[in-house]
């Protein structure tokens, strides 16, 4: 089966990046620089890749690169004891920076292999563009297109139309921190201004409070409290999450909407000032719950109130571990 990976793309950028990744992985494992190398390999379905944990240099040929390499691999890092090599996109590395900042991993225990990112696809958007109940048998990506084949169809989609929403407004497609950058910066997408990312949030904020509430309530209604969003987020690393606590029991799984709302508000607050809009939580959700507006709005609030942007610097202190005397206080009686 021809899956969507760099190998299908001939000599172009994505193919070159894939080669680069394989070489560097093999080199690092060969030299014993890393105990494990984490990258992507082909998944069992077209348009899917799956995380690969390599320990032998000869396995490096399994690694692939392409716009379906969507997982944020930083999520696995706190689980490893030895030195780990990891492939990161622009957003992934910012979560990694946060992990270093929050003392979850140490900088010298991780070899960061950065990829100048062109964006990843959003499978919901692919599904929409294709129409439901069409099973993709073959997928192929080129620089600007996505070719999909199945029983009775053979379509060519514009990559722009199926790009993940976070990527559309990405400000840091080139990793802000890495040991090795595959290729060069010119291979990445163009940087977007922060304002572009907030348009949607601003538009939404203009709705009446009741409308906003019912939008969110409707999204959250669908939540089955599987907590896959939490699992997928590299920043949700607490050994005991508040949703799992028995005493106090913050959240119950049989109480319905109110408890689900509490979970999501709690989650958004816990990633506030840390979330980098990598989109892993949304992609992980089996129920299609989309609360990106909430996290995006938090990002905007943090930027405007504290002039802070998450995941850019391994020095300093996390947002909520420090303060300024001049922080906003006009809301305090």
């Amino acid at each position, binding site marked *: 089966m021809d899956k969507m990976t760099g190998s299908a793309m001939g000599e172009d950028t994505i193919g070159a990046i894939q080669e680069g990744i394989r070489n560097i992985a093999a080199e690092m494992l060969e030299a014993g620089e890393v105990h494990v190398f984490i990258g992507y390999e082909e998944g069992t379905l077209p348009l899917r890749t799956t995380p690969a944990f390599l320990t032998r240099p000869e396995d490096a040929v399994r690694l692939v690169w392409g716009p379906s390499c969507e997982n944020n691999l930083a999520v696995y890092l706190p689980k490893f004891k030895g030195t780990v090599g990891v492939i990161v996109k622009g957003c992934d590395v910012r979560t990694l920076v946060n992990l270093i900042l929050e003392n979850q991993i140490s900088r010298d225990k991780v070899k960061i292999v950065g990829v100048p990112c062109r964006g990843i696809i959003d499978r919901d958007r692919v599904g929409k563009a294709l129409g439901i109940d069409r099973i993709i048998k073959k997928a192929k990506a080129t620089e600007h297109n996505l070719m999909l084949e199945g029983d009775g169809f053979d379509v060519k989609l514009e990559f722009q139309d199926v790009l993940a929403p976070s990527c559309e407004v990405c400000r840091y497609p080139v990793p802000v921190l890495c040991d090795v950058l595959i290729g060069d910066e010119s291979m990445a997408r163009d940087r977007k201004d922060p304002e572009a990312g907030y348009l949607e949030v601003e538009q939404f904020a203009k709705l009446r409070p009741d409308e906003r509430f019912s939008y969110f309530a409707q999204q959250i209604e669908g939540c089955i409290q599987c907590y896959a969003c939490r699992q997928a987020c590299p920043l949700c690393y607490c050994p005991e999450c*508040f949703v799992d606590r028995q005493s106090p029991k913050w959240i119950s799984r049989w109480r319905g909407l109110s408890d689900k709302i*509490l979970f999501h*508000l709690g989650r958004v607050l816990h990633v506030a000032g840390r979330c980098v809009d990598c989109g892993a939580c949304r992609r992980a959700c089996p129920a299609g719950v989309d609360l990106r507006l909430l996290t995006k709005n*938090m990002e905007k*609030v943090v930027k405007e109130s504290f002039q802070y942007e998450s995941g850019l610097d391994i020095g300093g202190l996390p947002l*909520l*571990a420090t303060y300024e005397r001049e922080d906003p206080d006009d809301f*305090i*009686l």
Partner: protein
Amino acid sequence: MLDRDTHIEAFSTMSSPQAVTPVQSCADLPDKDCVVLRAEAPENREPKIVAFLCNWCSYAGADLAGTGRIQYPANVRVIRVPCSGRVDPLMILRCLQRGADGVLVSGCHPGDCHYIAGNYLARRKFVLLDELLDFFGIEKGRVHFSWVSAAEGEKFADVVKQVTETVKALGKPTKLVR
């Protein structure tokens, strides 16, 4: 052991409109640490406001208001906390979820925190919570923050008056209540 909901039902029908005892610890309920705030009179509904008061300032401020015999609405149910920095935004959400009409968090003035920076750190969290609730579509005015020192009995009374009025005007909460 009584079923949780039956217990709450029984409790709310027991309370008369005047003698509302809205804060009852429910030690024999499955959720040991919860506080039931469901007692409710149909008419003449008086809002119930949970006030988290810092031990070192606002709690003493409330005490001063009491000893000074300053009148303020009896709608607040005080929970004493060691510092405003102790107040986890989840505690505020939990109050709203369990039927509180409003929540007030009050601590020492900036610079006066017993633990030096607790209130500064709390302030950041409150900015986030405030904005989050607003964006989510929960009425502005359910959750309030204030700085009240141990010497400000008057101010405490004023804050409580202001908060009570705002919360009363919002009517019965529906959005987060479980």
